[in-house]
Structure formats: C-alpha cells, structure tokens
C-alpha cells in the first residue's frame, strides 16, 4: 500500500469504489462515492473551475474532515455532498442513489432524509423555539405532529438540551445553539451529518464541547463529514481529506495527518 503524497488515494478499497465502472452503483458499504465530479462557476465572464475532478469514497460510520485553504473548492464540495448543488460533470452516489442527476424536488427530499446539516452560523430560525427548530426537518418529511414532538424532544435530550426546548435561539449560548443545530441535523436519522466549519463561531472551550458531541456521535456509528480549515479541529476526525485548487491533495488517516502536521508539511492546508 503506497502512502506517498503524490498518491492522494491512499486506500485501495476507496480507489476500487471510485474506479468501478461509471454509472454502476457502489456497494452499500459506501455512503458517498464521487467519480470525477467537476463544478465551474461563471464569475462575471471569468470561468472559475472550483472542482476539477474529485474522487471521494466514504464508508458508512466514517468520521471525515475535509480541509483546504480558501479557494480550494471545499465549500463547493460540501454543497455538492450536501445536495444543495449538482456537479457539471461526474457522478455522485449517496446511499446508493445517483444524486448528481436529480431534479430540485428530489434533491430536497434527499437533503431531508439523508443529510443533517450543521452550519458555522447555526442557521436556526430566530423566532422559533429550539423544539420547533428541531421539528422542522420532520415537518418537511410529513411526520405527524405528535411523533414530531416526541422525536424532536428525544434529539434535544441526546445533545443534553432536554431542559431548553422552549428557548429561542437568542436565549441560548453559542454552544447551546450549535447543539440545537446538531439535534435538528440528527432528528431525521440522516445517512450523513454534514458540518460546515461547526466551530467557526465558537470560542475554544465551546469548540471542544461541540467536538466531543461529534466524537460521541461518531463512536455510536453516525457518519460525520466535517468541513474545516483548522487543522486541530480536523485532527478530531479519523480521516482527513485535503483539497487544493479543486483537486484532492491528500487523503490520510488521522495518524498520518498528525505526522505530516508535525513536520510542517501541511502548511498549505493551514492558512
């Protein structure tokens, strides 16, 4: 098994999942498989190639961090993985479904069932209570209100906010808000928890608190994908993918990543 920096795909199985015949569904072990996805933007006449062919394969129950400097395409990749956007070329398989060719409403359904978002800015509805915020994905899933309430309360209890269900976001601390957002992300039992700079707006002790929540979720079998530019946050993940200029620069297990961090070889990923 080669693990040189010239070879981003450092895992044989992953390589196989990606290089399977295009158009064929990957094994059900793989929650995410992208095959050569590309995305370009037209920025006032200038074409920006945000992703230039990215192959990623992520197994169920993995805890993955996606890193990269700004402009590396990590936000674009996150939007694609989160089904908020579709690639211009390439395939994206999520839970065995070919998401890259889906229409708007199908994508909305996939976001609702398969993805739990956690945002840097929390993105809670400011005028709604914690309970109502957590219920929201269930509303769009068509869950009846009794069950909605029950499941939302359970999700809030899971993040130790069972006593804050009637509070509005402005009555909660930053860490509590992010935990409400995590409860909202988990309430519909998504295939992946997709966190975009989840600690970006939090102080370091609160960040640790949130990372402990992720750690716990990962140990209980939740697939977690986290986009961050902070190496010490990324170091919590079991696997770190580093993007650069719209391509994967490296894809390492945590130990290997930490090793590289220590020799300072990853200055490019840490800005």
């Amino acid at each position, binding site marked *: 098994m080669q693990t040189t920096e010239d070879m981003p795909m450092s895992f044989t199985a992953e390589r196989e999942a990606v290089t399977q015949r295009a158009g064929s569904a990957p094994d059900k072990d793989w929650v995410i498989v992208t095959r050569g996805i590309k995305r370009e933007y037209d920025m006032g006449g200038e074409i920006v190639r945000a992703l230039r062919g990215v192959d990623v394969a992520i197994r169920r129950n993995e805890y993955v961090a996606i890193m990269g400097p700004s402009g590396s395409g990590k936000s674009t990749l996150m939007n694609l993985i989160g089904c*908020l956007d579709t690639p211009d070329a390439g395939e994206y398989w999520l839970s065995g479904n070919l998401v890259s060719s889906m229409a708007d409403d199908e994508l*909305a359904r996939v*976001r*609702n069932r398969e993805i739990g978002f956690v945002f840097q800015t929390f993105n809670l509805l400011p005028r709604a209570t914690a309970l109502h915020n957590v219920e*929201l*994905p269930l*509303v*769009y899933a068509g869950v009846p*209100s009794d069950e909605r309430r029950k499941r939302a309360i359970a999700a809030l209890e899971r993040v130790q906010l069972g006593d804050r269900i009637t509070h509005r976001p402005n009555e909660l601390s930053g860490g509590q808000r992010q935990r409400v957002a995590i409860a909202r992300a988990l309430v519909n039992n998504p295939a992946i928890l997709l966190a975009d700079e989840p600690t970006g707006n939090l102080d370091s002790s609160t960040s640790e608190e949130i990372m402990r929540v992720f750690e716990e979720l990962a140990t209980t079998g939740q697939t977690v994908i986290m986009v961050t530019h902070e190496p010490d946050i990324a170091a919590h993940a079991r696997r770190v993918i580093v993007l650069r200029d719209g391509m994967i620069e490296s894809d390492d297990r945590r130990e290997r990543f930490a090793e590289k961090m220590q020799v300072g070889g990853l200055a490019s990923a840490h800005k």
Partner: protein
Amino acid sequence: MPFIDAIRLALSQIRVQKLKSFFTLLGVVIGVMFLIAVVSIVEGMSSYMEHDFVGKLVGVNTISLKRNGDFQDVSEEEWRAMQRRPRVLITDVEPVVSALPPGTLWSAEGYDNVPMSSRWAKPSNLEAWAVDGDYFQIREMKVSKGRLITSQEMALGTPVVVVGEEIAERYFPDLDPIGRELKVAGLPYTVIGVAESQGSIFGLSLDRFAIAPYRSPLRHVVNRPQVIDALKIKLPGDGDMIEAQETIRQVMRGRRGLRASQPDNFALETSESALKFWNDIKSKLVIAGVILPAIGLVVGAIVIMNIMLVAVAERTREIGIRKALGARRRDIMSQFLVEAATLSTVGAAIGIVMGILLAQFISAVSPLPASVAPWSIVAGVIVGAGVGIISGIYPASRASRLDPIMALRSE
C-alpha cells in the same frame, strides 16, 4: 408541509409583526368594510322596498290605472309623448269597475300640493287628496282620533278632511283637531279624523296629507274637471291579477277607441311593476357597491404583494434554511401563499366586522336602513382569501425558486 402547519406559521408571523401586518391589511380591511356596508345598505333598502315601501305607496295586490307609470325608465322622447296622453277621467271608473269581479274595491284619487292654513298656523303647501270609493280600505288606513269619511259624505261631497298626524300637530298645536276648521286651498274644511302614522320613506314623513271626498270642492283645485290622477283597484282575495289587468286594458282601449296597432296610452301599475323598477335600481347600486370596494381591494392586493416581496427578501436566509432541511419548491410556495391568504383573510374578517358596524352606524344616523346579507359575509371572506392568494403568487414563486446556497449566504 401540512396545511394546518402553514396556517399556524402564518398566524405566528402576523402575531410577531402586528403593526406591519395591520398596515398590510388596511387595503383589504377598507375594501371589505365598504363592500359589506354598501351591500348591507342596499339590502336594507331592498327589504324596506319589498316590505314597506311598495305596501305603503302602491299597495299589495292592487292595480293602478294612471296616465303615466311612476316606476319606469323612459327616454326623454318617450316621456314627452307620454305627456300628450289623455288623462284618466272619473267617468272611466264605472265602466272599468263593473267589468271586474264582484267584491273588487276601487278608489279614484286626485291630489296636488295646495296651501293649507288654520287659525294657528301660516299657510304652507302640502298634499291634498280628493278621493272617492274605498280609498281607506285599499290603503288600509285607520284613524288614531275621530273617524273616517263615510260613504254618505263621499256621495254628498261634504267638506270634511282626514289629516295626517303631522298636519294635526302643525295646524292644531296642543289642541284636539277634531271638529276644527282647516283651510285647504282657501276652502273651509272640518277635520273629522287623524290618520294613524304612516311612518316615513327614506326620512320623508308620510304624515303630511289631508284627504277629502272627491265630490267636495277640492276636486276643482287639484285637477281639471273630470280628471283623476289614478284609479286604484284591489281585487278580492282570490282575484287573478293578470286577468284583471287585461280586462282593464280592454275596457280602456275600447273607451279610447284605440286600434289594434296603437299602443296603450295609459299605464297599469302593480306592486310587482314597482318592485321590478326597484330591482333595476338595486342591481345598479349593487354593481356600484361592488366596484368601489373592488378598487380598495386592488390597492390592498398590490400592498400585500409588495409586503410579501419584502418579506421574501427579508427572510431569504430562512428560506435557505428551510430548503437545506428539505423544503421543496411547493412547500416554500404554499408557505408564502398561505401566509398571504391568511393575512388577507384576517383583514377580511376585520373588514366584515367594521363593515357591519359601519352599516349599523349609517342606519342609526341617517334614514337609510341597513340589513347585513349573509352572502356578503361569505363573499367578503372569499374575496379576502382570493386577494391574498392572487397577490401572493408572484412573491411565493420567487421565494420557491431561490437557490439554497445563495439564500443561506444572505444576511
């Protein structure tokens, strides 16, 4: 998203932004308020016309033979031609009545505004009637004081009068008018009765009259010789109105020697024809009463559309969040549509209440009667919700088409 959740959400939006919602609703409130008020007043006038006016002025189950009908819409030319028609004469009465079934009541009437005076009041022009036949029975008029004119007095032309309450009060203040002298067009008449109050129509008192026998001297004052203003016929209970009208027509055409090709040169009026005339006016009033509030509603719709566009812009991030969490286009669309519809239905509800109050107020301070029509309430609600839905379509579809990534990035 289930409908009930959408409504709950919309109501909470209204609750959170009370002042803004109020201004948004103003157009719809005013539109619906005037719709209800105008329709209530037209309906009030209508039920008044049907129950009181026609009964009082025309009489139910009666036919009036006149030179020209009162309740018709004619061109100026037709009107001039009608002025050249021959008058109805007292000599027409006997042939017409004898052609009708036995038990038919009739009354010949002539009237004019003439000066009246007494020792206690200066002369002023009031309605004087010279009547013959069963006038009081047809009018269902009773006296509150004194007595009616007897058939003997009718036959002899005795100079006696039955006066309306207002005349009694004006000419004989604080006195018993019975047996006192009232000068009608300078002629001395003795008051023998005061008629029960006839009420009023649109604020005009119906108690300003004096009624005398046709054969008394008054007939020379109110009309040229032989001429009467109307012959009123009231059929017995089971009489056929259509047949009676045809009989009268034939008798009159015969008396006037009209050829088959010539049109009638007299008018026959019934309470139905008066009502028909009223219904023509009413439909015009209703149209006016609907068009004017409609202008208010159009303004209201534009305001709602603007406010909803602002709301979509302000809540772009919320829309982004909802989309990220799985809201489909139609979920966002229905959220904003239901919000607009709920908003304007609340406005319509307020407008209905205010419209009813306005109608009550108008009928309290003016002679116009008011009665709230149930259909106008239903119409108000439907119009309110409709205005909201129509004005919400464009903003809602804009919201539903927002790109979730852009929407999430907005402040």
